[in-house]
């Protein structure tokens, strides 16, 4: 062990679930995400019947898993570069578990369609202003980027930061700034890219 390695500190992040709960969590997440992606592809298939919803859902699930592994990896590398060790697999498990808030958000935004105004506003507070936009209309780029910003997404960001703070043994402020900045950057990229891609054309 080098002198540099001996300086690396570790924190106290526990697994979100113990024992048999972990495989069950991953199985539930995989099934839920597969179902969610399949529903979204099936909705698109109304305009493109040649799409194979099942195959695309499997590919989407694979991409989702890669995204989760990458997200956890980037945070782990970031903290490692700052001299502290974030336990990768435990943190990755938290990131995966917290993605359930996104699943709830999708379901709520779908449920908002056709709901009374008061219910839609409540859902918008939870799942973001995307709940106020009917899915049949063109989605503005801003809504594509920030339409999920509600209590659920904020909770996910804060909990992701909390898991890092626990893992690296530092106060919440630094990890929260890092996580919120990363979230904002990805959302801005989504917003601006969607606008640039569609111009004045409506998004299907």
């Amino acid at each position, binding site marked *: 062990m080098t002198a540099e390695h001996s300086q690396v500190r570790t924190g106290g992040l526990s697994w979100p679930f113990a024992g048999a709960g972990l495989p069950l969590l991953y199985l539930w997440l995989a099934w839920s995400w597969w179902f969610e992606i399949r529903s979204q592809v099936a909705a698109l298939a109304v*305009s493109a019947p040649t799409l194979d919803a099942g195959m695309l859902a499997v590919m989407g699930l694979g991409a989702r898993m890669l995204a989760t592994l990458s997200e956890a990896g980037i945070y782990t590398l970031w903290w490692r*570069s700052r001299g502290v060790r974030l336990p990768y697999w435990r943190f990755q498990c938290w990131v995966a578990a917290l993605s359930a808030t996104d699943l709830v958000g999708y379901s709520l935004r779908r449920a908002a369609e056709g709901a009374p105004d008061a219910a839609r506003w409540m859902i918008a507070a939870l799942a973001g202003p995307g709940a106020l936009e009917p899915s049949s209309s063109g989605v503005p780029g801003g809504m594509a980027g920030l339409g999920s910003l509600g209590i659920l997404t904020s909770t996910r960001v804060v909990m992701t930061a909390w898991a890092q703070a626990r893992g690296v043994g530092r106060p919440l402020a630094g990890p929260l700034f890092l996580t919120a900045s990363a979230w904002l950057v990805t959302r801005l*990229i989504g917003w*601006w890219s969607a*606008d640039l891609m569609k*111009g*004045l*054309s409506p*998004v299907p």
Partner: protein
Amino acid sequence: MRRSLRVTMDFAAGATLIAVALLGAWWASDRARSWERPRWSSASFELLRPRPPIDTGGGVRWVMAINPRCPSCLRSLWRIHAAWSRRPGREGLVALIVDTPARPDARSLRRLPPIAVWWDRENRWRRRWGHRLYGELLQFDGSGQYVRTISAGEVPRLGGSRAPEDSTAPALEGRGGT
């Protein structure tokens, strides 16, 4: 090792922020640009194949922007063409070939359904109107005035006439016609 990792992560974070700032500047510039309101004029485009004589509908045109090199656009056009004959009013369905600098040849035209085909020689659709998604349908009234834009997925939900304000395309604020 930690030092080199820190330099690498700092560099990656800096490069990401610079790239996002550049993307934001590009987006702001694109949003600030003034686009022309679409207008259908026979002089603006080149007719490659006339419409079939069965088309009626008082001169109303639904113009689908397609690129012959885009197989999914062609599939979408064939699908819409198949459904079009079941629509009331029999408004004209027109294919507008865009993003194609060279005049489309007969082989390209044979891959299209039997509808009127026009070529956007100057690429007005993209350069002046600011539209970018193939497969969208632009509706023009009998005098060539723009009515609305819909995506191909909305065609099955098309009923009778709708007001221009129902368009799903972003509004063109106070910009005159061509």
